[in-house]
């Protein structure tokens, strides 16, 4: 799109300044007409009209009936004869003036001697009026003498006559270039009379080259060239002040070719079709999009690079001794040194007695203060041996107060990286098995602890961990208790059965549901029959908590299966993979 800036650029206006209009005086812009105010209505009512004028014109009644101004008798007017002071030819013109005004002027110009016949025009004195002088604007023109022209202003393209003609036109039309160009009609040989115009094409009347069709640019170029040269002649470049120099530069830099191109461009821009405009718009938006994408990509790449590459090493920050403050660090260093020592020994034969190895052992085991020294010493050794000086070490120690303020805490084992407080809390709810996790969640819900802890700070986490471990313990105890209860029930049932056998009586079905049911199950198993599901269910609560402990139970049941041959059929039917080995073993034994 062509913006105001583009237009300025095309027209060659330097942004903000108006240097090309060299001598044309700037015309003051008329102030924007003030909005007519509606008269004769209350201000409040007028405000209701809003922006637009009311559809019906509001007439002011007052105005219509206003008394007429009484200004006395009619004024007299005189058709005055006057000469314009701006004219040199003394042309006498006439115009109407108020009589009193005219009399005053005449008295002034003719020393009060007024021959009083105002009616006849012929005897009326001619007054000279200066009113119109202000409209006769003289433009600044470069002037030169013949010598100057010969010395500096000669041009192959322009004759002296044509140059003079151009200058006179410029003067006549006050730098209005389009007008100058329009009127420009140079007849070589000074023949400008209309009677010779018809012959101007005849070669005989032309002492110079045939008339050239001059463009505005040609005219301007010639004129500016002359102006610039003369300017430099009058004031040497070094003495020009800023304004003059700027003007001089503009004059000098004028390039008719670029001007022509610019105008052609402007015309082309103006004559574009709608489709072309649209396409241009589209391309521009596309370009903008591509640029944005590119810059974003660049930014992302930079970030990635910053992350991948090693940023500027910051020697002031690198902790050298930090790693030797812990016993683990020292141990590692010690091992490293031992290895080096060994290598040296291998290279240089038997070691000298009381070598550094012994020394460092004792020192490494010394008090913390000597420890520090040892570490320093060791670090120094390392420096020489590895030819890599560890950077100086600022101690990253903050006062406890500052640590609290900046929320810095110290931990023994940390995996570096970012973690979140709520994740930690969530993790605590997770047990090893799914079932256990669900149970813990149920227990916590029963306690009225919501699923998301609103303030997941480390303090809360600590307490919460205690809570979860307590809950876990409770669940464990409950599980064991329930299992034992189940066993009890079975044993009781067996006891009842035994008693019944001893008494020679069949077991009474339905006498105490749980016991009797399981007793029946036991009985069936002994016969080698698979219990049907409905009977299995009778076992009751005892088996409700299940899989979490299944593993340890299975250990026990393995023993059970291998010993009790009678249950081998049942064992074979189990699908649990852990059990498959045991059950095959037991069936083999059963076959034997």
């Amino acid at each position, binding site marked *: 799109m062509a913006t105001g800036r583009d237009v300025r650029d095309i027209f060659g206006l330097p942004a903000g300044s108006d240097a090309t209009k060299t001598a044309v005086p700037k015309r003051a812009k008329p102030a924007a007409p003030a909005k007519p105010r509606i008269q004769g209505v209350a201000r409040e009512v007028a405000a209701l009209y809003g922006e637009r004028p009311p559809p019906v014109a509001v007439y002011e009644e007052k105005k219509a009936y206003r008394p007429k101004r009484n200004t006395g008798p009619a004024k007299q007017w005189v058709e005055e004869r006057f000469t314009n002071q701006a004219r040199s030819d003394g042309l006498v013109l006439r115009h109407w003036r108020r009589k009193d005004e005219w009399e005053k002027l005449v008295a002034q110009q003719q020393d009060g001697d007024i021959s009083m016949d105002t009616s006849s025009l012929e005897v009326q004195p001619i007054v000279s009026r200066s009113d119109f002088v202000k409209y006769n604007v003289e433009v600044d023109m470069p002037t030169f003498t013949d010598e100057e022209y010969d010395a500096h202003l000669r041009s192959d393209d322009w004759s002296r006559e044509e140059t003079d003609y151009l200058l006179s036109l410029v003067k006549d039309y006050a730098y209005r270039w389009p007008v100058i160009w329009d009127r420009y009609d140079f007849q070589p040989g000074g023949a400008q009379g209309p009677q010779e115009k018809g012959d101007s094409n005849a070669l005989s009347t032309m002492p110079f080259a045939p008339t050239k069709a001059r463009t505005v640019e040609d005219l301007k170029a010639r004129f500016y060239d002359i102006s610039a040269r003369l300017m430099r002649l009058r004031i040497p470049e070094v003495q020009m002040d800023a304004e003059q120099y700027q003007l001089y530069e503009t004059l000098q830099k004028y390039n008719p070719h670029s001007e022509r191109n610019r105008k052609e461009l402007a015309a082309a821009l103006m004559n574009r079709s709608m489709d072309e405009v649209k396409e241009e718009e589209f391309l521009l938006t596309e370009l903008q999009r591509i640029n944005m994408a590119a810059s974003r990509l660049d930014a992302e790449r930079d970030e990635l690079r910053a992350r991948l590459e090693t940023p500027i090493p910051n020697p002031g920050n690198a902790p050298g001794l930090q790693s030797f403050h812990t016993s683990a660090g020292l141990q590692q260093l010690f091992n490293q040194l031992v290895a080096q020592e060994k290598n040296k020994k291998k290279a240089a034969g038997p070691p000298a007695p009381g070598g550094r190895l012994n020394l460092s052992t004792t020192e490494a085991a010394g008090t913390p203060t000597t420890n520090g020294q040892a570490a320093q010493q060791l670090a120094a050794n390392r420096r020489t041996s590895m030819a890599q000086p560890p950077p100086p070490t600022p101690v990253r120690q903050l006062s406890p107060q500052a640590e609290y303020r900046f929320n*810095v805490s110290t931990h023994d084992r940390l995996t570096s990286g*970012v973690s979140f*407080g709520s994740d930690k809390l969530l993790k605590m709810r997770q047990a090893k098995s799914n079932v256990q996790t669900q149970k813990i969640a149920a227990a916590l819900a029963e*306690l009225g602890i919501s699923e998301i802890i609103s303030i997941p700070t480390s303090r809360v986490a600590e307490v919460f961990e205690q809570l979860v471990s307590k809950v876990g313990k409770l669940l464990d105890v409950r599980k064991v208790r329930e299992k034992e209860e189940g066993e009890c029930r*079975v044993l009781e049932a067996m006891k009842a059965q035994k008693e019944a056998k001893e008494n020679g009586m069949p077991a009474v079905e339905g006498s105490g549901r749980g016991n009797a049911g399981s007793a029946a199950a036991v009985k069936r198993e002994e016969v080698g029959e698979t219990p049907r599901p409905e009977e299995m269910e009778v076992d009751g609560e005892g088996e409700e908590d299940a*899989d979490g402990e299944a593993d340890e*139970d299975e250990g*026990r049941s393995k023993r059970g299966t291998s010993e009790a041959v009678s249950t081998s059929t049942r064992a074979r039917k189990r699908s649990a993979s852990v059990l498959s080995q045991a059950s095959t073993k037991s069936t083999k034994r059963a076959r034997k």
Partner: protein
Amino acid sequence: MPAPPANKRVKNKRISRNIIIGSEAYNLPPVGDPTRPKGIPDDHTKRWTVYVRQPPGDPDIRAWLNKVQFKIFNTYENPLRTCESPPFEVTETGWGGFNIDVRLHFQPISGEKAQYRQHFLQLEKYGDEKMQAMQERTGCVRSEFLEVVQFNEPTEALFEALTSESQWDYLTAGMKGAKKAAAMAVGPNGRPKRGFPNGERTAQLPEKGGEDVPFSGEGEDALIALIREKIGVVQKSLEEETKKREETEKRLKDLRAELGHDAAQQAAQQASGDRSRRR
């Protein structure tokens, strides 16, 4: 080989920062109401904002947070919204809640990868009766959670940045003279405002809670007290359970002694075997 110095981390240190991830939802005026903003589909009933903030007066979040991306429901135009600078928030209209992926991008000096958080966009009233009444009254459903971002073994540069005093400069930046003085004046609770020269400047939670301070040290203490209380409850039932267990154990022992070893084995197997058969 020692690690290159730039990736050097400060060992055994953890720096924690609190942030608030949350959302607010307001009712839109019904369709046809003149105050209803233009250009909103007719079925949208709420205007909501999802945001990542820091508790007021905390050290500058920009010290470690580079940008935040919100992945909102994929029927929205441009569902991955990126906020490069504070406020880290996205405002939209809609009619239903969904899970929003909040991706936190850390400053390059931290050398950390971006991390996801999830936030459910709560549009309808929730919580207990008191909360619901409050939400009814203000017409605003707010659901926000405190998150503790822990930088474990931060890089040297990050450590430096997160322990510098200039982290609070953003509070007074752009304020001059009277305005600054006004900002530094006593806060609404009669104490110097947090984060200003006379107030305490800390990355810890503000001590006192209030209407506009949903997360505070007080709240933390209350929560801890609540959990402690629950620990007491659990402890009590644990003791009861232990007693019961001892009784059962005793009974079991008696029964085993009475019925002999074989029967005991069989019973044990049966009690557990039935369980494993269920798998």
